[in-house]
């Protein structure tokens, strides 16, 4: 049996083809149309695997674009899917920190991979990928470059988590001659503190960091430092939602999954 999970987020669309294990996966930018992005990423994995749509038994869609996907069999939120995906990878209960383009989520998962509790930022962009993107632009950098700056610098204090205020703060720090890596470290620490406040005083034991934000090593280090625990990043942190969707599709068709 073959099933597919598709996760269409605000910045990228991901798909996983699953046959009891991950067979192939693909990541594409979302662009303007979530539906097209979903269709294209599906086409890409089918192409890679040399399969046709008819050979796929079940497709589960997730991510903010899930409602736009008219070719899927079922839509499930990314919160539930992340939980299943990470539980499949780790086999443990724990806390997932997911930093995507527009949202930051903290999800608490039990041993069976079920969501026990979750917190998600509201309208405010503070602490999301968007926040770092705006700051990167303000510094004339690409958001992907943020994570690769040197490690041993003193983070500068960023006093505002409001995207609008922090942007002008960053600009005036630059103008004041503060080094870019110190500002970036400061921004990472600010995001990490924001995430910590979403944990509502519970000190997590196992933390898995996912989403596009998890590709930023500097941010991972900042989270580990603020939370005082080890923060793990899966090999492909962007596809865990799509993986969870695939597992739900698999189980929905009567498949059983062994942990990875």
């Amino acid at each position, binding site marked *: 049996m073959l099933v597919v999970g598709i996760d269409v987020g605000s910045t990228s669309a991901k798909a996983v083809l699953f046959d009891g294990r991950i067979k192939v996966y693909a990541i594409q930018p979302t662009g303007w149309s979530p539906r097209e992005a979903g269709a294209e990423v599906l086409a890409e994995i089918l192409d890679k695997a040399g399969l046709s749509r008819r050979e796929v038994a079940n497709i589960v869609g997730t991510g903010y674009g899930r409602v736009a996907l008219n070719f899927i069999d079922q839509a499930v939120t990314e919160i539930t899917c992340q939980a299943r995906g990470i539980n499949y990878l780790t086999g443990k209960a724990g806390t997932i920190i997911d930093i995507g383009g527009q949202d930051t989520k903290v999800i608490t998962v039990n041993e069976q991979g079920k*969501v026990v509790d*979750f917190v*998600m930022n*509201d*309208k405010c962009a503070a602490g999301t990928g968007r926040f770092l993107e705006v700051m990167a632009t303000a510094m004339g950098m690409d958001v992907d470059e943020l994570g690769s700056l040197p490690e041993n610098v003193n983070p500068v204090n960023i006093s505002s988590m409001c995207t609008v205020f922090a942007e002008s703060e960053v600009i005036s720090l630059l103008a004041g001659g503060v080094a870019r890596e110190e500002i970036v470290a400061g921004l990472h620490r600010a995001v990490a503190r924001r995430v910590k406040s979403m944990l509502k005083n519970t000190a997590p034991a196992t933390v898995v960091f996912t989403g596009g934000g998890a590709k930023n090593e500097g941010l991972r280090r900042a989270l580990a430092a603020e939370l005082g625990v080890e923060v793990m990043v899966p090999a492909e942190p962007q596809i865990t939602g799509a993986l969870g969707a695939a597992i739900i599709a698999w189980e929905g068709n009567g498949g059983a999954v062994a942990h990875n």
Partner: protein
Amino acid sequence: MSDTYREMWRELNMDLEKHDVFLGTLPVAFGEVFLRQENRPAGMAYFDNALAEAHGGRIQEILAGKKAGRMVAGTFCVFAPEELIFAVDGISIGLCGGAQFTVPTGEQVLPRNLCPLIKSAMGFKLDRICPYFQAVDFLIGETTCDGKKKTWEILNEYVPTYVMELPQKKGTADLTLWEGEIHRLKEEIEHRSGREITADRLASGIKMANARRDALARLYRARWADPVPISGKDALLISQLAFFDDPERFTAQVNSLCDELEDRIARGEGVARKGAPRILVTGTPMALPYWKLHHLVETSGAVIVGEETCTGTRYFAGRVAEDGRTVEEQVKDLARRLTAINCACFTPNKERVEDILRLVRDARADGVIYFSLQFCQPFGVEGRLVERALQEAGVPVLRLESDYSEEDVAQLKTRIEAFLEMIAS
């Protein structure tokens, strides 16, 4: 729209152009949210029409009453003792605002970081697109949250605003204070209406308000059934209309709708399948035409089976004793409602948690959504204590904060659906 209505709006000094734009948005929203629902009770037809005529027929009625010498008072809080208004045969209108449309105008005179309910209400007045605001003789405000309390001072520049001091605790001294405030309002109303409030008249005012409370309590009880005989959206609409409609007619209509709902229950008929996830909503009021949360929840496969809000159970809490023989006794009885309504403006407010837990049990709710309007301090801050108490009782709870805009609909939907998935698993 008929020419008579246009003429009427012009006489009310409304901004006709802006009003057209505002009214133009409503039918679409209403059709989308309400008319598409399946198997709606036939009795909803009255309320659909009441909403359609909210700026038309109902205003005509109020203006006719006004011509005949009836006083028209606007209120903003469930603590306003409407019984006194009814006692002089006055007309009472609840004026909270629930539309994003008027928020930007409200922000011209109020800070942006104030709850949208206050900004919307203020905007309705400044924009001159609410015929009720234009028709009232005066407003009755209370010292509830700071936002409202300070807004009265500004609103008073546009329409006379009388302020009652609502205590923030529920002790004996507070009750005495509130009783004095009701006496003071009584004098104000007597003065404005030119009618004396006698024990007989007040007794009939109390009976009228109680009858409406009883009808709404009956409606809310019907929602405990599984399958639920009426959607949360429809029940919310009815609660919202309670603030505008003629109380006696409204009460009769709610009761006849309840007859229909009770028949449905007896037949096991509902608007959602038996066993559909049941949600209780608690938090800030949802003023007309705010339907966003209910719509999101009920288009995600769940049903809302109750609201612990001021457009819900808090509105009809605190039935007033009907056996007071003197005005003195009656005012004491009216004051006692203070202890029966558990609003976050009070401290401490532990009874609210008890109310919520009881409602969860009665309505057999699977989970609670704690909803607060953005920048609402009382309900925002109290959320933590309520959330913890619910978790300790093993009741799943989702906290949401939002405003009247549509920007965050996708995020809210994700959270609501994830919450429902969590409850189901």
